[in-house]
């Protein structure tokens, strides 16, 4: 035991002493190391999931069957979705939380540092299991990332059990990560960092973590019932045994809808950090931003059945879920209004983080509006399960969540590495991404409205031109992300030295520590004025 104590003392004498070698990463308890691992992992998963999207787009380039079997196509759509949701977007946000939250609130580290490392290291293993399942006889999961029963029970392959258990341990990781974030924010704020002084990124993550703790266990319950239905003869989702396949959809979407806010609330926090910096004005309507975030979180528990209008439900239910869903547009509108009002008469400059944040505001709003269209029950009967839905959620998840993550990476890279990124390359990355992402997803609205169903490897001839166009957009968007990797590698290896404040208009505790941020920040809490 005494050895541990000496190690600890030793650590504080040599302030910036980092353990070396592979052990540093395996055994670390440092929030910055863990944040870096989360971010690198998310980037790798982004490319693996992206490669699957390229397979999908190659197959859909022309009508007819080109490259892959229908079953393999279904595996690609399924695993692409699972990887992007659980392997890329969520870990990227958790990585940002790990890096930034302790620095933003003046904490020495995350509240439970060892558990923090456990949360991370579960993830590579969970996704290893999911990827191995693709090589099982009969192939990997092919029932869509939503794994509706009976597709995942009666009609699924042997890999279902691996899918179930990998989701279980992903859930454990998310819950532990969320507990860590909440406890850090509740308990480790520096004296004077009152609730309504917290940066909005901290606020949005606090509420996100609450959502994670509420809904990840429900997902665990759903996969457990799928497991017992498939392997142990239960009939939760089988009418012959007194259950109901619709029950699956209720349980899944009770998790699934808050889940989409889990993937967008931290994005709101990021944009609310970036816009004031580059507009050189404080955020307009800070308090209303906080209340809007909380309102969105509460409403997210009351809207799940809007994914199920065509499944069938009593009219009163359909009306309730329609109106609650449309109500979410109000707090979301507050947010968009506040971002625009922040820029009003600001002294704006347009560095790469700001460009991505601006693109976020415009394109996420498009995704929000198509969501509003989908919320209208009678109209949803036309849109449901078409490419219109695919267009909608890719606007909110790619040009929303992913763009915000990229913006955050550019915004905080100088703080992480101590070097400025290559602005010119970054601008190239932005413009290539912006143009290609719209080539990719915008035409999906039209083919969807015209009736092209999603999750089908072939389509009617009338959709051929649009699909060729979409695929080209997809390949270009995929290729554009290679520029991002180039920028990241270049920035990590060197470049113009960054100052502590980095950006002229940046305010907050994280900009008061040197760049790169020292290995241990705030051993004793800073004074907040």
């Amino acid at each position, binding site marked *: *035991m005494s050895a*541990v104590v000496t*190690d*600890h003392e030793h650590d504080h004498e040599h302030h910036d002493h980092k353990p070396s070698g592979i*052990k*540093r990463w*395996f*055994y*670390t*308890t440092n929030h910055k190391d863990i944040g870096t691992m989360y971010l690198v992992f998310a980037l790798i998963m982004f490319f693996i999931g992206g490669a699957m999207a390229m397979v999908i787009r190659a197959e859909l380039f022309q009508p007819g069957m080109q490259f892959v079997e229908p079953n393999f196509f279904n595996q690609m759509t399924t695993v692409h979705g699972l990887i992007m949701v659980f392997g890329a977007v969520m870990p990227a946000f958790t990585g940002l939380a790990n890096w930034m939250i302790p620095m933003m609130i003046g904490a020495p580290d995350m*509240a439970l*540092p*060892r*558990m923090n*490392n*456990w949360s991370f*290291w*579960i993830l590579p*293993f*969970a996704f290893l*299991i999911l990827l191995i399942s693709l090589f099982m006889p009969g192939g990997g999961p092919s029932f869509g990332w939503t794994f509706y029963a009976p597709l995942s029970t009666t009609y699924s392959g*042997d890999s279902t*059990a*691996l*899918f*179930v258990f*990998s989701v279980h*341990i992903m859930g454990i990781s998310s*819950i532990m990560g969320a*507990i860590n974030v*909440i*406890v850090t924010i509740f*308990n*480790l704020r520096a*004296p004077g960092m009152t609730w309504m002084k917290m940066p909005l990124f901290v606020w949005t993550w606090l509420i996100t973590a609450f959502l994670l*703790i*509420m*809904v990840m*266990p*429900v997902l*665990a*319950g759903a996969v457990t*019932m799928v497991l017992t239905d498939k*392997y*142990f*003869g*239960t*009939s*939760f989702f089988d*009418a*012959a*045994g*007194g*259950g*109901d396949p619709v*029950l699956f959809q209720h349980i899944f979407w009770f998790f699934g809808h808050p889940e989409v806010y889990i993937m967008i609330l931290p994005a709101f926090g990021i944009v609310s950090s970036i816009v004031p910096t580059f507009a050189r004005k404080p955020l307009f309507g800070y308090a209303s931003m906080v209340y809007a975030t909380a309102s969105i979180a509460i409403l997210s528990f009351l809207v799940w059945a809007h994914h199920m209008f065509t499944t069938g439900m*009593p009219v009163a239910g359909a009306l309730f879920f329609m109106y609650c869903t449309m109500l979410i547009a109000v707090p979301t509108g507050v947010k968009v209004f506040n971002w625009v009002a922040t820029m009003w008469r600001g002294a704006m400059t347009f560095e790469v983080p700001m460009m991505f944040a601006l693109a976020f505001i415009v394109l996420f709003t498009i995704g929000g509006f198509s969501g509003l269209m989908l919320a209208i029950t009678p109209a949803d009967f036309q849109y449901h399960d078409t490419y219109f839905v695919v267009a909608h959620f890719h606007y909110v998840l790619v040009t929303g969540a992913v763009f915000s993550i990229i913006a955050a990476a550019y915004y905080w890279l100088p703080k992480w590495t101590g070097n400025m990124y290559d602005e010119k390359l970054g601008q190239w990355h932005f413009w290539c991404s912006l143009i290609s992402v719209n080539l990719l997803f915008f035409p999906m609205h039209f083919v969807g409205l015209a009736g092209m169903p999603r999750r089908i490897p072939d389509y009617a001839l009338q959709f051929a031109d649009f699909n060729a166009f979409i695929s080209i957009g997809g390949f270009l968007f995929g290729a554009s992300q290679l520029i991002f990797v180039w920028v990241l590698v270049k920035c990590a290896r060197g470049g113009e030295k960054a100052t502590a404040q980095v950006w002229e208009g940046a305010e907050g505790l994280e900009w008061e520590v040197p760049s790169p941020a020292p290995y241990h920040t705030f051993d*004793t*809490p800073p*004074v907040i004025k």
Partner: protein
Amino acid sequence: MNKTYEKYYVPAQSPWPIVGAVALFLIAFGAGNYVNEVTKQQPGFGGYMLAAGFVVLIFMLFGWFKNVIDESMNGLYSAQMDRSFRQGMSWFILSEVMFFMAFFGALFYGRVIALDWLSGGSNNAMTFAILWPDFEAMWPLLKTPGGIETQAMPATGLPLINTVILVVSSITLHFAHTGLEQNKRGQLKLMLLLTLLLGATFLSLQVYEYIHAYRDLGLTLASGFYGNTFFLLTGFHGMHVTLGAIILLFIFLRVLKGHFTPEKHFAFQAGAWYWHFVDVVWLCLYVFVYVL
């Protein structure tokens, strides 16, 4: 700087998290294969991998908790650290509540909506007439639409005795806690031991009840929606009681070694919270699964 501020202890490095991650990998990958092997009755490595995973997990828990206990006994933890642990445990219990909510939600949905619709409720008259015209909605569901029959588990007798046992165990645990707070170590030891014995009795009676259900009532995991919800709810509850009892057992061993003071006893508190939580789950379960 703030004078009252105590240093927040950040452990230097720890091998246990990654050992824990490897353990979960072995468990998940092993279980994923084992489930297929068992249901198809094929030989395979899944079971061994699953068992190995649990061994590694237990090894990890011992190592990790040993470090934490040593650090705590050496006074490295401030009051702030204590709050972190307490808050962490509270949020963990909330996540457990939500896990049970998924199964209770399924139970309510099945009873109120699915069975009604299967017997022609709402606008399902044709489904009923064509698919299963003989089906009669009732709870407990003693005959499924597909024709599987079973008998119901009565609320009186063993389940009632078990309810009393678990409620009493929560009370004895409360007195163990007051004993600890008033530094009455004798009361603490006695009451904690009683709690453990009551917990063990509860679990043994549950096992007996399961045997009774399978052997005499024909009530199995596969006997329709009633059996599904009965066994998954009581099963997951039983697993949580087992975990709670293991936690309390280690707390008891630590009490015997003289750990915990009236002021500082987070581990005891956490174990007690967990036990009370499991007790509350049982009360809901008794009302909705057995009585109503």
